[in-house]
């Protein structure tokens, strides 16, 4: 098998990923309110940090 044999597979992968519909609202919210996207990311990072601290504190072996 050669690399060229995988060209149809890349096309197929793109088709599979194009099947799910994308809402205009979704794109508009990204381009009109980019700060909202950053806020969500920050919230998630903070949540992960808090969870990590909680798990570390409660799961320390005695």
């Amino acid at each position, binding site marked *: 098998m050669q690399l060229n044999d995988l060209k149809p597979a890349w096309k197929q*992968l793109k088709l599979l*990923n194009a099947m799910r519909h*994308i809402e205009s609202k979704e*794109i508009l919210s*990204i*381009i009109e309110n980019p700060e909202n996207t950053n806020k969500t990311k920050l919230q998630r990072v903070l949540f992960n940090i808090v969870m990590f601290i909680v798990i570390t504190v409660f799961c320390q072996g005695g």
Partner: protein
Amino acid sequence: MKFEKRHFIQIIDNNKGTIRSLCKVYYANSEDRKDAFQDIILQLWKSFDTFRGESEISTWIYRVSLNTILTKKRGDKKSISIEPLDTPHQDICTAKADDNVELLYIIIQSLKDIDKAIIVLYLEGYRNKEIAEILKMSQTNVATRLNRLKSRLTKKFNNKSHAAKRS
């Protein structure tokens, strides 16, 4: 809604398969994929004014998407080191890659970030010169990396088929 925004949404809708596929080959985690997708849309929108149609829309999409992902990856301190292709990669041999899409996905996952971009652009049908322009690399560098990847992958495929014949 302004015509410019409607036109942009239409372009994204027509190319969502490409953008999502790129996010998928670079990020295993769905949240990371979603972040990358949003970053790409934002970068495409920011550079939409400067896009003058000198290249194909798909080339512009690839250029902005890949450069956004590669910049994001470089800046991502959390990213773990990716296993290079020349180390034994068990997945390629043992996974049930009855489907070429699955095989392609496994192979791309095993590559370094920059090599992923080169392979994807090669599979898309771009020539070395175009790949070099899109990724802002020298043509020699692209050609060397691509040849190395091709020969390694061919060797891996052959090993896999030999192993399959023996078993």
